[in-house]
């Protein structure tokens, strides 16, 4: 029995690890989405955190917590730059701009080999211990829980659902969205360095368009109206390919896509929907 468990652990430990790393990106996307901004820029925050973290790991002897902190702050700085440039744009343009930013990120990463290793990327020696990952994710989730239960949470919900009503209640939508982007930057930057450590490698392809789409799919899949949705969605979206590979090896991508499509059509508000839960509770 314990052998079986050990085998299972060996087989799925890395899936679990990536699910947790992806949860950071999903949370970073959820952070802005929950204040009414559809943004893919978490990829860019991830790149900032990932490459800075990798350089610090390779070239300094800083303790891990400081490296995590520095990476999260790198994401935050990047997010504030993005906010200064994009926050005045209307929602459609914001989405498009952030997508453009993801494209530009890759070009910049490719062309600054001194910082990023360019095409070849950077290889990292030591793997990330699972304990760190669990602890940091717990910390992040705790942070989102605090946000949700605060005045910020109430204001963000209002801004997301109806910005002009929110404004007439005295809520400054830009201020709320600025906080949302700061949170997104912190989570994305931290996710970036964790991704780098998990892969033991970072390259221009680590933070590109597929990450943007995966994380937004994870958020919507899990449910974008509660902080647990992105965590759940990231887990499903990470595990799905592994499961599909075991079940239908040749058609795994097609099966992934079909699963995503079906969930979206039949559960448009995601797997975890607080509104539906409240409605069900009310019906009782």
């Amino acid at each position, binding site marked *: 029995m314990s052998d079986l468990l050990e085998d299972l652990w060996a087989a799925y430990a890395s899936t679990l690890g990536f699910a947790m790393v992806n949860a950071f990106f999903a949370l970073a996307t959820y952070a802005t989405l929950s204040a*009414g901004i559809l943004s893919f820029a978490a990829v860019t925050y991830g790149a900032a955190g990932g490459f800075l973290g990798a350089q610090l790991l390779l070239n300094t002897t800083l303790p891990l917590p400081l490296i995590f902190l520095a990476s999260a702050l790198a994401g935050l700085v990047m997010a504030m730059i993005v906010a200064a440039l994009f926050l005045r744009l209307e929602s459609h343009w914001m989405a*498009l701009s952030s997508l453009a930013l993801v494209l530009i990120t890759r070009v910049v990463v490719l062309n600054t080999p001194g910082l990023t290793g360019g095409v070849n990327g950077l290889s990292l020696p030591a793997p990330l211990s699972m304990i760190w990952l669990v602890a940091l994710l717990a910390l992040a989730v705790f942070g989102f829980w605090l946000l949700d239960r605060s005045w910020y949470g109430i204001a963000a919900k209002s801004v997301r659902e109806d910005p002009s009503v929110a404004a007439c209640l005295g809520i400054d939508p830009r201020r709320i969205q600025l906080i949302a982007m700061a949170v997104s930057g912190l989570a994305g930057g931290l996710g970036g360095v964790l991704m780098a450590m998990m892969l033991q490698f970072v390259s221009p392809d680590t933070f590109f368009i597929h990450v943007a789409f995966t994380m937004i799919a994870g958020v919507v899949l899990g449910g974008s109206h509660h902080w647990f949705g992105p965590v759940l969605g990231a887990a499903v979206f990470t595990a799905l390919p592994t499961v599909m590979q075991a079940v239908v090896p040749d058609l795994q991508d097609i099966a992934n*896509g079909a699963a995503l499509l079906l969930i979206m059509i039949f559960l448009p508000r995601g797997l975890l929907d607080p509104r539906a839960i409240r409605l069900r509770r009310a019906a009782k």
Partner: protein
Amino acid sequence: MDLFLAQLLNGCALGALYGLFGIGFGLVFATMGILNAAQGAYASWAAIIAMYAIELAGLPFPLAALAGIAAGGAVAVLVDQLGFEPLRRFGPGNHQAAMLGALITSIAFWIMLDSAAGLMTGQQSLAFPPGSYPATVFQIGPLLLPAMQAVSLLALAVVGGGMHWLNTRTRFGAAMRAVGWDPVAAALGGVNSRVIVVATAGLAGGISGLAGILAGISTANISAGLGQGLMLKGFAAVVVGGYDDIRGTAIAGLLLGVLEVFCAQYLSSSWRDAFAYALLLGFLMLRPRGLFGGGGFTRA
């Protein structure tokens, strides 16, 4: 000077493909408000079908190209009806939520279509058989113009002009815009919105498919990845040109092609994409309505 002119021509021919693809991509975004991640797959599929039409069915190039365009359109209609239509009917009323839902289903189709395209091509990069497409080279003064470059430029002019005419001069164009604004109101006003939506999707798929076929020839690379390259630049063309502005998209596509070729020639080939995307970002921030922004409509 000759080199300059020759590169200008190369840039325009490349840019014509971006413009063409962008017109298809922009059509879906402007009329239906959908940021369609699967659009690139239409181009890959059209190129693959056109190639097999030549290789396996032995069709002459023009017929094979038509088959490819039809395939692009058919795939687009399929994606629209399976992926977007359910959201229009049962989806959330909130505009942003609806946009997000359509983006996700389009990602789902992007994954499926790219993967299926990979199976179709045996995960390889294929090419049209040599001699299966027009390969004449015209000489205009000092310039050499390969027939397929001429076809690309012509295709952009015809499609761009045709779409502009359709959009501004016909009832179909007006109906497309009406459905884009508000499907419910359009249905009440007598526009059969489902027919219009299907026709728009098919048209957009066909146009992107044509761009895919031409790109498949000019790059001699037909694979599942063909569409993705087109999509990134086509997306840039749409934004720089203004997503509801066909003329702007066409010109922006040309501009991006020329910029790319000249950057590679005179500056640095590794930074050439950076210029294109920097232009894209600059426009998003400074002129979000595009090159000729102003007319047309916005989605508030």
